């Protein structure tokens, strides 16, 4: 099950990519998916992170589907 994972700002810089594709088992929940992303990129643990699934903030319980768009970013600093 393939998903896109997007990084922005500080997380893009830490990971060295703005967008990657990852493969998850069926019935993976968003919390598990994000834990796997952090294992894959341990440098992310230096940051306080927020997660989104399909452009909405994730609560960890969302079931990831094929083709979903995940995002990992630091606390926002617009304004």
């Amino acid at each position, binding site marked *: 099950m393939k998903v896109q994972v*997007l990084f922005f700002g500080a997380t893009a810089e830490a990971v060295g990519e703005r967008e990657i594709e990852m493969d998850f088992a069926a019935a993976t929940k968003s919390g598990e998916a994000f834990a796997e992303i952090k294992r894959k990129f341990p440098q992310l643990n230096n940051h306080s992170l927020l997660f*989104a699934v399909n452009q909405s903030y994730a609560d960890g319980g969302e079931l990831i589907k094929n083709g979903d768009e995940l995002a990992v970013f*630091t*606390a*926002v600093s*617009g*304004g």
Partner: protein
Amino acid sequence: MDFFELTTEPLDIGAIARRVVPPECGAIVTLDGFVRQFTKERETLYLEYEGYEPMALKEMEKLVAQAHEQFAIAHVGIVHRLGKLEIGETSVVISVAAPHRRAAFEACEWLIKELKRTVPIWKKEVYRDGETWAEGGEQ
């Protein structure tokens, strides 16, 4: 007449405020955020704003809907600029029109607070001696 936009063009505060004017209202409150030259005595050369654009627009849309639920306001306009901004340039404009100005002040203040908490936009501060991505809660 609500609107929420991202743009890389300079922001015209007056023109944005003017777009939220309905005929029954008499006051607009506008928040104009801009690039500070000094943050705790460190001199900023310029800023770069990056957004997760489709999610930022969705979050802005939610904020506008919530503001209408919470405050007796007529129209809201939010425009956030992205890309490179020089010192003194406006990064965000939030204009709220309301029949009574109290609601406009309250809603405008609530909107900028929530925007800074929820809308996925980040700023990179470029100093003489380096650069850093601001992470929320720092301001």
